[in-house]
């Protein structure tokens, strides 16, 4: 096991016990790792990629966290990675938007997209903005969404991370979901 991996594990353990500095050092490490993974996938350097946000996070975990990390550390890593994953993906979505404009294609705004079809057709940037709005009102609900959507966590695991009961989690998720849909629906836009 490389020293880098051991340090990630250590940082995880420290950050879990409330060490904010550890968290700050951890985030860029995870971010780099996820970006590198995604880049490899894009260039087709690594065949046999597993292709979902969950899989990416899982893959990053396998690479970064040493075998002696405990189960709590694993959950915590996923929580960190979910945050990071969200940034990676939103960055990517932004870069795609620029690419589209740069190449002369017309930019589809949220309003346009909503006007076209009766079905909700949203992009990641709008979702991210709605999640930010949710976080301002209720940080935990946003975190539930983040853990489950970007970290690929099960409801049970997410409840563990947040130290709430699964029943509470489901209740909060229901409201969070309704909030996001509300923010992203044509009426609101």
């Amino acid at each position, binding site marked *: 096991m490389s020293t880098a991996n051991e340090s990630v594990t250590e940082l995880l353990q420290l950050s879990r016990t409330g060490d904010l500095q550890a968290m700050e050092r951890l985030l860029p490490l995870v971010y780099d790792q996820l970006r590198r993974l995604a880049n490899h996938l894009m260039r087709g350097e690594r065949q046999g990629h597993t292709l979902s946000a969950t899989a990416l996070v899982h893959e990053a975990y396998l690479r970064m966290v040493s075998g002696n990390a405990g189960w709590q550390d694993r959950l915590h890593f996923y929580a960190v990675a979910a945050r990071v994953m969200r940034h990676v993906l939103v960055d990517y979505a932004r870069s795609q938007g620029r690419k589209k404009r740069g190449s002369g294609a017309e930019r589809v705004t949220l309003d346009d997209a909503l006007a076209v079809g009766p079905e909700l057709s949203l992009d990641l940037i709008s979702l991210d903005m709605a999640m930010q709005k949710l976080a*301002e009102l209720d940080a935990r609900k946003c975190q539930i969404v983040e853990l489950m959507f970007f970290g690929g966590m099960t409801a049970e695991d997410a409840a563990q991370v947040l130290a709430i009961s699964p029943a509470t989690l489901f209740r909060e998720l229901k409201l969070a979901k309704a909030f996001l849909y509300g923010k992203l629906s044509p009426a609101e836009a």
Partner: protein
Amino acid sequence: MANLEEQERWLRLEPLFHQAVMLDAVERDAFLDSKCAGDEVLRRELAILLASSDRTLGQLQEPIRQAVDGLTGIAAGQSIGPYRVLRLLGEGGMGRVYLAVRADEQYRQQVAIKMMQAGRMAPYNLLARFRAERQILADLNHPNIARLLDGGITPEGVPYIVMEYVEGVPIHAYCRDHHLPIAERLRIFRDVCSAVDYAHRHLVVHRDLKPANILVTKDGVPKLLDFGIAKMLAQGPISGENAPTQSFERLLTPEYASPEQVLGQPVTTVTDVYSLGSLLYQLLCGTPPFVLDTRNPLEGARLICEVMPQPPSAETAVHPEEAPPDAALVKGDLDRIVLMALRKEPQRRYASAARLSEDVAAWIQGYPIEARAATWTYVTRRYVGRHRWAVTGAVLFVMTLIVFSAAMGYFKRRADHQETIASQQASYLAGMFRAANPEAARGRNITARELLDIGAQRIEHDNATDSEVRAALLYNIGVSYRSLGYYSEAFGIARQAYDIQSKLYGAQSPRAAEALRLLASSYRDAEKFENAEPLFRRLLQIRQTASGPNSIPLEDAYADLGECLYLENQNTEAETMLRAALAIDQQHQSATGFKVRSYLALIIERRDSFPEAAQLLSESVEIARRYEGVDSPNYAISLHNLGSAQIDAGNLAQAEATLREVLKIRIKVLGNDHPDTAYTLNNLAFVLLEKGDWASAMPFATKALEICRKSLGEKHHMTGTTTGNVGRALEAKGNYREADAKYDQALGVLRVSDGPNSLAVSRMLDYKAQLQFDQGHYGEAESLWRQSLDLRRNIDAKSTYVALSLIGMGESRVFQHDAASAVPMLREALELRRIHYAATHPLVIAAKVRLGEALWVANSGEQAESVLRDALHLAETAPYPLFPWQMAEVKSALGACLKSRGRRGEGTQLLADSRAELTNDPRPIFRISADTRYRR
């Protein structure tokens, strides 16, 4: 940052939301009115939240999926090879599946493209192997298998395959959503079995059968996806280092994995039988046999390898909404069938998907099932257990099944005291399969044919093998050759087996008789009747002395000889033999009863005994369906015969429908290139030509010819006959010169295959004559018909064939202005046809029309009118409606006759009717004939 007001509102909002969510729409309004009185903002926000409270998470996650797609994969609008991606269909352990269209073609066919996870493939020679596999899969052509259309490798090196896009739902969901009762579920399941069995016979094993891979279309047709693809993903052939847990993790859905897959042992066709068992289990009770905890793979592996699941009938209450409404019927035999398919030891399961399917069919029909026959299974298990040879892969095992199951059938009868021979034979077979190891063959695909050739070759050069074993082996190889349609190889091998058996046990012994029967049957199938007939006679003699008076072997011997005689057109003696067989069959109803009835019906029907013939034929079709199922070759044979009978009865429309059904079955069961398929294609072409539909006939005739050339050889009778039918289609199209060339070619073949004075040659002369006639060369036509008449009179002066030549000659005479000499010829033709056919038969009506025409041209107007009026009356009252062109002939002849006899009104009307009947006839010669024929 949200302001204080917003924060405060959110805190008030949350408990209200959770209360309101529990209410229905009307109650919600009242609730909001009371709780948000005076706070419109709160009310509006709450309403918005409630409006989307029922939505699922899926849509919110969609942009995330898209971003991941974009980052790591393929997005809509991108191209993969010549295909343009429309959207992602799904994601599985093997990779992603996209919906795409072919971009560079005129037609926009929607396809599913599966991107392989290359990392999961064996690194060794990856691409070459991928291409080879792709070819095998591309050859799978079955209505219940999603077709593999294309495949390639992206510039990034990721292999992909392009498959037929199936719109459907997974089989268990389909059964659940439609509340299908057991019988319907079993029907769909048997379709699945037939697809799996078909693939096995094409040396392809699925390896990953599970509900998600079996979609049912809205018409209730199951389609199997991903055939053989799992194999591409598996490790290379040298895979000893796979630990059990690795194998376990490799499987996406361990619920449906077999013990051998979990243990990393060779995967064979019987592995698919296990998965079919799991599927059937789930269809019958609504839950898979094992529900595994993915977090504990070792425990899962142990369950799969060691624990027998509860019988499905015990699990119907777990998910009652998934179980069939009549789940109470599962208990008993269906339990046994499922558990037999799910046995841990591959060799104790059903030997093939077909056997499993047959047992399910037996249950449906209320017959005893195989899963109960414990003794036989026990024998097999004991036997195979002692000879666990190294079968390296699926290909080998499929072949083992073909030859080995024949061998097993043989052993079964003799298992009690023949174990030594059995084991020797088995090790010999093992050697044979080792010799055919794909690696030894440098990666080529071994065909069944090649494998048999290897076996035959080895045994000829192998002096060490005990002659008793030799005989048994030769016999089994012979059976396999015959069942694959390689007749000349079959009788070579069968003769050797027979010689050895006669020497060892005596020529009268049952074993020698068995080999004798194989030999004779191979000759008969190859249409070498002169060789087959004496052998069948000898077989009958042996059985008459050695077997009981009412025994099945004796019935078989009568039936075999009767069939052979029938094929030789010796109808009288054939009928005697077949009636003897029928008498035995009526005592105990054996499965061969269908054949006896079929042939007997054909003979009787020639005597114009339609009711008895029809009775026998429908009995035979029913017996075959009941005993062997609609996918069985024998069902196809009985239907094929029904089709022939319908042709003879003049019921061409029904014959066409019957033959199309036969064709469907034969293609499905025997494949595209089997001689039996060619027979059906040929008959179908014949019917369509008689109908006047040459455009439809052409592809059938050409395909039949192609198969005959390939599988029977250039010099075979059938190759000659089908060449003639291609000629007839060309002629009907108006290509006279090409047609004539085909007839000459056919004549060349038939003069050798059937002899220069044969019926087949005379038929080709007819075709040539008709061609001359159509071009107005009446003299040439007459002389050709004269030749065919002479041949036919020599063979049988009273046959309907003689009538055919007479009609041709007579007509040529009429057109050469010698109607008077034509009249007696046409009278004779009519009389001959009346001997063989009913008065309303189209052939009799046609003969009447010709006679009436001749009488009219010969100035016997009154007689002509009476004959033609009679013909029209018969045509209008015929049990099977005549085709338009036939009706047109009758009407135009009578119309012209009446007009010349002064009844202009009636005559003109009939002629107009006649032209109307012909407006849609595609044949140029017929469009003009009605007008030109009677202009004189």
